[in-house]
């Protein structure tokens, strides 16, 4: 499904790149370790994390991810936001904790394994 539909259905706050929400999301990846995302995330994934620092955007760009959702209402740091605009990576926030958010995404057909 398109990221914009996920945004609407889960009432995610959009921090930037509002015009770049047309990416197709079929898979998600959840991790708070940059090294883990670098090793295991796949191109096009939606990344669920609580990390809001600058490296999140660099790693998302490195892995060509389709967007990052911050959980527990966390907001990106200013430098993170600036960088995301530069790289064209949508940054979103959910007020939900990770487990609940991911469960709902799974219920919408987003998977974490395979392609």
């Amino acid at each position, binding site marked *: 499904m398109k990221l914009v539909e996920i945004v609407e259905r889960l009432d995610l706050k959009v921090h930037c790149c509002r015009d770049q929400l047309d990416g197709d999301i079929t898979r998600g990846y959840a991790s708070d*370790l*940059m*090294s883990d995302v*670098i*090793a295991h995330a796949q191109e096009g994934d939606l990344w669920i994390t609580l*990390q*809001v*620092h600058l*490296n999140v955007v*660099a790693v998302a*760009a*490195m892995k060509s991810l389709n967007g990052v959702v911050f959980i527990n209402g966390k907001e990106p740091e200013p430098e993170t936001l600036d960088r995301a605009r530069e790289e064209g990576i949508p940054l979103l926030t959910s007020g939900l904790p990770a487990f609940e958010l991911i469960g709902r995404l799974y219920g919408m057909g987003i998977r974490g394994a395979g392609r």
Partner: protein
Amino acid sequence: MLTEHHVDLHVHTCLSPCADADMIPPAMVRRARECGLSVIGVCDHNSGENVRAVREAAEGKPVVLGGMEVNTREEVHLLALFGDQEALEKLQELVYRHLAGWNRADLFGEQYLVDREGYAVGINRRLLIGAADLSIDRVVAEVHGLGGLAIASHIDRPSYSVISQLGTVPPSLAFDALEVTGAGPFAREPCDLPADQPPGLRPAPLVCFSDAHRTREIGLRSTSMLLAEPGFEEIRRALRAWSGRRVLRRNTRS
């Protein structure tokens, strides 16, 4: 005779991808001298390859301690500082063996190897921003085994700190010092406990360094210590409050 020395043991160079290209030895030395620093610690991410160049440029003023900021498996940052080059190189070899991946300079920044004049002599292609596949326990043990100092980096930061990643400063990790930023919850804590605390129970002193990623940041935060002379062994003694040496004060400038 013990005198007061200002030290900044957390300074990056242009080798760290997130540091400015202006972090070259001559500029760093000039700035350190302007700030009245007796000792600086050169700590690039997962690498010590620019240490020698900075030390040569400094010609003893300031004294340059060689080290690196290791990024552990848990993504905790710690400073590993050494009194001798050989020990630094042994840690380097261990870290490189456990560090996977290649840098994306377009995303993380370039990683310049430079000489004492600041001319680029090469590029480090490893993913220095990555996490070495070494636990924090292992890194602390290895650093101590090599005779070095292990200082937990910026413990009050919300990322890459022992508290952000592990939730606490585990008592089992024998850090020689804990680096705090100037503000934050540790601002009013004293540097050290009174000297009458039994050595085994004395917690690690709180210190403050710049974590400079650009030249103008060098010395913005520093730690004043009472030392017989500026150097590695004296700093080790001060961190242990041994025989009159001690950590006096954390300094922050705006």
